[in-house]
């Protein structure tokens, strides 16, 4: 049957909606090859339609299969793009190595471009009135208190606060910090809020 490989690819993408799987280079190549084969067969048969009219319908059927493969491949890429966007919002502009390697080189390039476009938009916010931009990846939840107690989950190193104080974030150390200054570290899993 036509376009079956590409369905396996999509089912694979649907299985893990909250994580991203390695880019399936191999299968993409196979599907593109299937398309080339269908196309070649169509070229041959299209030339022969003068002798055999009913070949024309065969050509049309293959053409539908080509269209189907195209749609499926684009849907696969698109669903990954949505996940890669989430990576940008959640991990930030720099991806951890183990996450980075799940992306193909082209996808990483897309990630970088997406990230740059986003950064330049955010930098532009409020520029007319002297702001250096606004980071939209912060202030994600309605604020409840200005300071929160956090537990450090990893050896992070020094963190300089807005008021100039420098604190050392060591694994298992506890701190009482301004909410606005530790949201990103919490999102990235380096700090954990203690309720």
């Amino acid at each position, binding site marked *: 049957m036509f376009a079956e490989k590409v369905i396996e690819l999509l089912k694979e993408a649907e299985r893990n909606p909250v994580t991203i799987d390695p880019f399936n280079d191999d299968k993409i190549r196979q599907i593109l090859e299937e398309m*080339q084969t269908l196309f070649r067969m169509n070229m041959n048969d299209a030339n022969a339609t003068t002798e055999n009219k009913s070949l024309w319908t065969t050509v049309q059927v293959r053409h539908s299969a080509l269209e189907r493969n195209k749609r499926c491949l684009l849907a696969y890429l698109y669903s990954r793009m949505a996940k890669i966007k989430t990576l940008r919002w959640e991990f930030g502009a720099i991806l951890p190595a183990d996450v980075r390697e799940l992306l193909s080189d082209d996808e990483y390039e897309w990630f970088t471009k*997406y990230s740059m476009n986003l950064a330049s938009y955010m930098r532009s916010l409020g520029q007319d009135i002297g702001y250096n931009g606004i980071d939209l990846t912060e202030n994600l939840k*309605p604020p409840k208190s*200005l300071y929160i107690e956090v537990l450090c989950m990893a050896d992070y190193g020094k963190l300089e606060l807005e008021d100039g104080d420098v604190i050392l974030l060591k694994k298992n150390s506890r701190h009482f910090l301004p909410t606005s200054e530790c949201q990103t570290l919490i999102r990235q899993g380096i700090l954990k809020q203690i309720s």
Partner: protein
Amino acid sequence: MDLTDDNIALSEDEEEEITAEVVLKTLQSAWQNERLAPEILPHRNDMVECMLGQIQHMERNINKLPKTDLRATIHKMELSRIKFIICNYLKTRLSKIEKYCIPILNEERQRVESGTNFLTPMEYKYAQEYLLNMENHMKTVVLDKMPGNMQMFESNKMAEHPNMQSHVFLKANETINGVVLEDLAGEDEEIDLEEGSQHILQYKPIADLVKNGKVQLI
């Protein structure tokens, strides 16, 4: 001590001055509507910038107060509430712009010409760049490797449209008579929205009422 600029002129040609309080209320309702409407709404950059100005002004003044001063903490808390609204509002818009970038850009081109643009210039630029990156990515990874007659990036097909017929909850800010609800059987129904009444109905017939502030999405 008064930390606010009490009266703000929104734009120079506008005689009328409105208070920061009104700006905040307007922004809050714009945020709420943006969150709950399926389509992108006309931007309220005037309100955003005005609030950002207020925040900046206020932050400078807070810094003059002792750190532990109760008033400083109160002001900081209010500012972080407002920052939350602004960030969430702008972020909501960005995610709609990304999702519906093709139809938004198509419609926006016409709106820019008539000066009734929904996006800010920076949002417009963002959308164009976003679509361009998407197109290039799809071309590089698969389209260019397909047989010749399959290589087109067909933006008409790719376009995802907001569902204008999705159902929303609303409260009428004033009485509106004769809202027409489309019925599939062809028997359209007319209803009146009395001031303060609440309804769930299709977005499409009330889209304009959201934009002109006659109803609030809830």
